């Protein structure tokens, strides 16, 4: 029998598929978005939309407010996150694990939730409205605080990574040279973390200006670009003008991502393989001060979440505090009912599964199948680009692209599939970077060793790369799940009437004045995400235990 000699060129096959996918679901929709921003009412090419928007009196205010919001959030979030990160990584204060957990908690919630909590606390019917004096929480102060809480965990993750990579030898040396603690802090700690700090600043900035949830809830008259897009599209049905604002919002986020990538690369380059781990010594004064500061920070965060949970289970916050589960009858409100939660879980789980497979497969192909250098660089550029596109801009681009009846892909418009693809594309970048670093940790000769034995790259991928990267894969899946559960911006223009989503339901119920059920559903999202994290941790523990077990029967060779 002659065995077929067909051997698929794995590199071109895979990268071709990915190239096609990215062209179709990223480049083409964004291209159309740009084109639509330049399309006049008569269908001709024109700059009239930009002129119209630029002449509108509110625009300048929107631009200024967006910039204020971005910079203000950075100024508030990054120092606070640095303080907590420093306490966790560089001190011996008690409860560091609890602080780390609570500091990251807002990651599990839609960005709306902190904003809603602020309204509960300081709004017209807020618990502490007297604190506001004659002022109102709606507008700049509330928005700034809401974004600070929402972006805090993102900065915390980056800064913890930057601070955890300390080289113990440098501190020993500084100690020998007689440098004091402050001297060591300014001469060693800050410079080593500076790229991480810069990176955190840009991430916080672009998250804050691209968010639509918090401005919708607590923004008041403080218009920002993201909310302008939302209003133009859903309020005025003016897609072309929405496209104009989306393009305007794109410019700063693209810049921010470029700078962030530069800083993150420099930060990674400061790590040397020969570094010895740094163990902080106990210091009562320092640890005590840090403990007080960090406790204040996490109590604020925990308090915010607690307020939402409390408001969800009382009759009428804050007047009638008797206990009730009425607000959990989501069916009674205009949000989508419990189905919305189920839909979100389904979407998030699918995004996690398909997204993880796609991102890791693509990263593997680009790193390990030795494609042309140009192909690899192009892939890497495409994989990094989604981070620069605000969810609203991508969502609007998809709405324009797939809603066009001429488009053969019109069939997926208004279906689950377009939501799935939008989520995978929007959250592509971070999992891509995680995949790349997991793959770079693999021995570069695995594929060669397999090739010598006539085993193809698919076998190496399945039997070696995937098992060895299982921790990274679980982390990626969790990231995708949590983000797909919480995002509003990507899906708000795309979800069909018969497939409502939990995060959007929070927005809509709050908008309709049903604040308590909105808070209840927001908390549901947190709990689902928390369960997902627990599940992920259990999977990791199981994998580690299986890895450690030595009792592999010899018969197992049949499996490889």
């Amino acid at each position, binding site marked *: 029998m002659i065995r077929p000699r067909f051997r698929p060129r794995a590199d071109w096959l895979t990268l071709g598929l990915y190239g096609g996918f990215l062209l179709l679901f990223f480049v083409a929709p964004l291209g159309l978005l740009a084109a639509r921003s330049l399309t006049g009412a008569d269908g001709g090419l024109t700059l009239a939309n930009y002129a119209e928007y630029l002449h509108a009196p509110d625009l300048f205010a929107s631009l200024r407010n967006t910039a204020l919001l971005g910079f203000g959030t950075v100024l508030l979030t990054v120092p606070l996150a640095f303080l907590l990160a420093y306490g966790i990584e560089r001190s011996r204060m008690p409860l560091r694990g609890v602080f780390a957990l609570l500091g990251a908690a807002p990651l599990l919630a839609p960005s709306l939730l902190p904003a809603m909590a602020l309204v509960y606390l300081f709004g017209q019917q807020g618990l502490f409205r007297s604190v506001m004096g004659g002022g109102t929480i709606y507008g700049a102060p509330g928005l700034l605080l809401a974004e600070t809480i929402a972006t805090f965990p993102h900065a915390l993750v980056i800064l913890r990574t930057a601070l955890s990579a300390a080289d113990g030898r440098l501190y020993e040396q500084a100690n020998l040279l007689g440098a004091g603690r402050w001297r060591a802090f300014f001469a060693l700690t800050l410079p080593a973390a500076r790229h991480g700090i810069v990176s955190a600043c840009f991430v916080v900035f672009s998250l804050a200006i691209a968010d639509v949830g918090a401005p919708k809830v607590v923004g008041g008259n403080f218009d920002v670009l993201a909310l302008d897009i939302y209003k133009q599209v859903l309020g005025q049905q003016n897609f072309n003008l929405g496209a104009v604002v989306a393009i305007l919002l794109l410019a700063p986020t693209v810049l921010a991502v470029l700078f962030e990538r530069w800083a993150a690369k420099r930060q990674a380059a400061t790590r040397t393989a020969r570094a010895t781990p740094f163990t902080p010594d106990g210091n009562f004064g320092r640890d005590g001060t840090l403990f007080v500061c960090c406790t204040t920070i996490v109590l604020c965060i925990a308090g915010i979440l607690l307020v939402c949970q409390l408001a969800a289970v009382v009759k009428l916050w804050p007047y009638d505090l008797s206990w009730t589960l009425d607000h959990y009858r989501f069916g009674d409100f205009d949000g989508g009912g419990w189905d919305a939660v189920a839909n979100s879980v389904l979407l998030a789980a699918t995004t996690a599964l398909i997204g993880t497979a796609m991102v890791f497969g693509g990263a593997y192909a680009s790193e390990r199948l030795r494609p042309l250098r140009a192909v690899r660089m192009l892939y890497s550029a495409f994989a990094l680009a989604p981070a620069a596109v605000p969810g609203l801009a991508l969502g609007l681009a998809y709405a324009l692209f797939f809603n066009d009846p001429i488009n053969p892909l019109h069939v997926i418009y208004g279906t689950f599939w377009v939501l799935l693809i939008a989520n995978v594309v929007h959250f592509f970048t971070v999992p891509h970077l995680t995949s790349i670093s997991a793959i770079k940790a693999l021995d570069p000769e695995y594929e*060669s060793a397999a090739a*010598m034995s006539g085993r193809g790259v698919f076998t190496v991928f399945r039997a070696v790369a995937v098992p060895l990267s299982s921790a990274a894969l679980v982390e990626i899946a969790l990231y995708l799940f949590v983000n797909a559960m919480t995002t509003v911006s990507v899906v708000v223009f795309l979800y069909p009437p018969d497939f409502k989503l939990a995060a959007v339901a929070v927005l809509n119920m709050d908008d309709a004045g049903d604040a308590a059920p909105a808070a209840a559903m927001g908390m549901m999202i947190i709990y689902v995400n928390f369960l997902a994290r627990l599940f992920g941790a259990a999977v990791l523990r199981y994998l580690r235990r299986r890895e450690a077990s030595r009792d592999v029967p010899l018969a197992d060779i049949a499996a*490889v």
Partner: protein
Amino acid sequence: MSSTARATHLAIEGLGKRYGAITALDGLTLDLVEGEFVCLVGPSGCGKTTALRIIAGLDKPTAGRVRSNGRDLTALAPAERGMGMVFQSYALFPNMTAAQNIAFALGRERNAKDRQARVSELLELVDLSQFARKRPNELSGGQQQRIAIARALAREPRFLLLDEPLSALDPQIRGRLRNELKSLQRRLGITTLMVTHDQAEALAIADRIAVMRAGRLHQVGPPREIYSTPVDPFTAAFVGAMNLLPATVEDAQTVRVLARLPLRLNNELPKGAKALAAIRPEFVDVSPVTGPDALAARIADREFQGAFVRLLLLVDGFEQPILADVGNAHALAGHGERATVRIAAEHVRLFSADR
């Protein structure tokens, strides 16, 4: 072993590799006869690993061919060439046991029972039967290397390719494993090509050595021949320690070393040409006694090497020290400031300095 009597087993013909403007490998031609152990040696970046990967089929050459017994292998996939390879990192899969790593190479062609039997056989061959269920991180460096060899041998290759197989090991055990490797190769009689940057290792292990530099082959021959009759200053200096002393050609029979010492050396270089006189440190004759046929030198430093002492001698007016190895019992081995240096013409090889 008389190599010439046997037929060429693997023929490497004019192998070249270019990356754009960079030439990594330039016309490598080398024949291996059945059962011999050839070392490809050279400084890092000389193209030796590139050559090995092309021979294995892991990279495509931009010129030349690889043939075996008249059959052209150049276009064949790595697994179709009858070659086994051990990688510098060993590339063992950390998630698999030693047995699974070996079984991986057997592919799916055989049934489970055959595979099992073959794996046991290979583990026995490298004397690691009791480690079958260990994962690589539970094995020592030497054991990992043997598993990698067993995996490379799994498909009964006719050629074994080794890419710096000893460089990842501690110096203390490197010598022992070098001997084990050599004896395993002898026992199996498998034609072997090994890449190494360590010339001492190559001298100790190889039947023949191929010296490479900057993508080109400089010299091929048995270790003794490479050591005693290097064809150019590079090979002379790369393999073993070597003094390369500036010299001037006086006539067809005479050269003057270090502008002073006349030596009777037959040569074909033009009169007045600049040359390099190469002499091994062990052939440099040093004594405390002065004489007319000798260079006066100061002993700048002594390096105790265990079995001998290496003297660093500075001849007046020259910055480059002359190395001389003397026995521990030598008069100058322990003390003394001044020495005279004599060079015997029969131990000197002369190279043109123009190249």
